[in-house]
């Protein structure tokens, strides 16, 4: 029978392995750096942004990248200006706040809902399982964007509604995974042992199931943040997402698309930054997955040694 210490050991070891492995892999390192930079500039937008993102100057509209600023001593407009003469880079930095907040918070909400329901379904089986998984199946048959459009259509657009809607439409992925993982664990000897020594269900779920299903769910969450950032962009592009006077990356593309032929930078850079963010999240998730999978990790580490 496994003791607590035994169960804990591989976990702490993998934490150290993960950090080391991620830093030593060049692509993962770059992805990590990019995402960290975007995250830091979103949090400290006031400090990082070279200009006021709301300052309009119609005489300076649609200026190409590297145009000097009218304020002589400040930085040039590195990524150009938009149709109202606002600094594109500063708007991207402030827009990161909205886009990332939408992505992270709706991933968190949907992750919590999905994981709880998935664990319940996998642990208790029976009616709860049937009900929850049928709901998952039904919702899976409607494409995410369509479902989100439908709900936003009745709730109305806006930041809060967007988070709610994205949480509603994405919980199923977590539920499926949490259920599958729980099912597998449910049949393993240490759970039988826990039941034998008289542990309550709640205790088993929180002591044994949750820690063991957490890491694949976190990886899934990383992927989901990327998907949700893309969904936000799509919905804002269609006019159902973020609304003015707020701004997000998706809305910047949407607003700049009529200028694409005359001022490509207005659309190109927000699109590029969404792509870089989601790509680095995907790369991070892929790295996390291969490190946390014992077989792949072994291969990875062997590769590093040789």
């Amino acid at each position, binding site marked *: 029978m496994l003791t607590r210490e035994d169960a804990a050991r591989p976990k702490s070891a993998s934490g150290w392995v993960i950090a080391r492995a991620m830093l030593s892999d060049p692509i993962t390192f770059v992805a990590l750096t990019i995402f960290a930079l975007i995250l830091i500039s979103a949090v400290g937008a006031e400090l990082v942004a070279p200009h006021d993102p*709301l300052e*309009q100057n*119609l*005489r300076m*509209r*649609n200026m190409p990248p590297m145009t000097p600023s009218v304020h002589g001593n400040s930085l040039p407009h590195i990524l150009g200006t938009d*149709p*109202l003469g606002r600094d594109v880079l500063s708007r991207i930095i402030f827009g990161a706040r909205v886009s990332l907040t939408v992505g992270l918070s709706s991933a968190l909400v949907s992750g919590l809902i999905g994981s709880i329901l998935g664990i319940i379904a996998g642990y208790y089986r029976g009616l709860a399982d049937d009900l929850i998984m049928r709901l998952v199946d039904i919702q899976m048959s409607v494409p995410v964007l369509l479902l989100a459009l439908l709900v936003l259509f009745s709730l*109305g*657009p806006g930041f809060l509604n967007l988070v709610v809607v994205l949480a509603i439409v994405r919980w199923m992925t977590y539920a499926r995974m949490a259920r599958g993982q729980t099912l597998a664990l449910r049949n393993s000897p240490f759970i039988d042992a826990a039941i034998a020594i008289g542990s309550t269900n709640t205790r088993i779920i929180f002591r044994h199931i949750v820690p063991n299903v957490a890491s694949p769910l976190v990886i899934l969450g990383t992927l989901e943040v990327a998907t949700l950032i893309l969904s936000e962009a799509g919905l804002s592009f269609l*006019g159902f997402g973020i*609304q*003015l*006077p707020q701004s997000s990356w998706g809305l910047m593309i949407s*607003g700049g*698309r*009529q*200028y*694409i*032929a*005359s*001022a490509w930078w207005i659309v190109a850079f927000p699109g590029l930054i969404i792509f870089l963010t989601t790509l680095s999240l995907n790369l991070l998730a892929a790295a996390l997955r291969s490190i946390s999978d014992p077989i792949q990790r072994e291969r990875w580490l062997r590769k590093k040694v040789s």
Partner: protein
Amino acid sequence: MTFRKTLTRTVVPLAALLLMALLAAACVAPVDTGAAGEMMEEEMSVLTVAVGQEPTHLEATWVAGETNCNGCRNIMEMLVKRNYETGAVLPMLATSWERLDDRTIQFQLREGVTFHDGAPFNAEAVAISINYMWTAELSQTLTGTIGATLSAEVVDEYVVNVSAADPDQILLEKLYFVVISSPKQIQEEPETYASKLVGTGPYMMEEWRRGESLIMAANPDWWGHDDPEAAGGKISFDKLIYRFLPEDTVRAAAAQAGEVDIAQFVTPDQCKSAADDPNLRCESAPSVETMFVRMGNQGLFADRRVRLALNLAIDKELIIDTILGGAATITGQIVNATATGHNPNLEPYPYDPDEAQALLEAAAADGVDVGQEFTLASRQGLHAGHVEVVQAVAGMLRDVGFNPTVAVMPPDTFNPAFSHNWSELEGQPSWVAIHLHGNEILDVWYSYANYFVCDGAVSQYCSEEMDRLVAAGGALSGEARDMKLQEAGQFVYDDIAYGLIAHMDLAYLVSEDLEWEVKLDHRLQAKEMSPAQ
């Protein structure tokens, strides 16, 4: 495991799946408009127009607004037409008319006209068509559009009386918006009324490919062949294709790539890029659309100083020079010079932010809460660059001490919010809109009666004096009407009933192979176009 087994287990079903998909893709007969269109162009002349909006339905009432139903006036015709340079009402399907009383006009109809389905055009056809528009349960009646309920009565085979429910001095002008549909369609197949147009025009509706295009074919029996003068043009194409391309960028790109002959409503920037293209030109022309700020005289704007401050704070010229690319004219009233009641003495309000700030401070000193938050709303997709205009105006208002919040709303939430009378919104924070107003009737009474009388459908303004002036002007006709309405115009100008920005030009990318002069009404009528010599 042998190779055979492998084959049966994976490769065969996979291949079968792919084959199925391939077959299915091939079977679904490709309706190749592009290739077919190009091939046909050799033998027959085709005009392809890229328009921004697909019609929601094809009820004949919808033809009243061009953008509701782009190109539909190629199919449908009215009793009268208008000269948009002089404002004169001219004969079309009616050859002459006589006003019987203040509600009724008697029309003498053109003889020898037939509908596309073969039904003869006569007084009975006109009566059936007009009466159907106001009695049948339609998606949109014309009452809201032209502000009148009409009926028609047969007098003789080619004589018909058209009456308004209430006294109406501009009934004739309003009939420019009433198209005549085939009585055969209305009587024999009314279920097609929402999806098919049957009229008397130079082109016949061939097919509505939903989501894609509206296709029309030349009408060999058109009455206008014999009388191009009265018909206002001639048939120069065998086939018309009006493609629905809602993306501004894509519409302009289609013109640049030579896929369409006309791209409707392009931005000033897109116009500029056409200058380098030897195959394209930009046609930009004034329209009846006027961009204005509807604020009214309630709530925050009950104080005249606040209303004046709003007008002084907006740098109209800067907006026109930059965002609108010069394609607009600064204005002091809501209609342009062609309209009855246009007052030539009204100068645009100047731009004076310092004075605006001083006015707001003075108002604040008298207890007006000038810093209160209000919505500055607008409708999505109204006009290229409109979202930028709204944000620029919000910035300018903020600079002098206003506190607006921008809201760019989709049509289905903006429209009901806009369609409120001031009395319904009492006590709520001000809801100011930057909108376009298009007075196609070319009579300012129609604009004032909607926006500046106490019980106007979309009025946020109320003043007894204005009510009196509008009522008096509406009852008059001719010179007297013009003078009375000019007086009303002076009154709202002095009282600062609204914020004014500019008369808008609308622009098109047009192929050099096409001759077309854009008129004030901006209707995409193929009879006014012809291939370049």
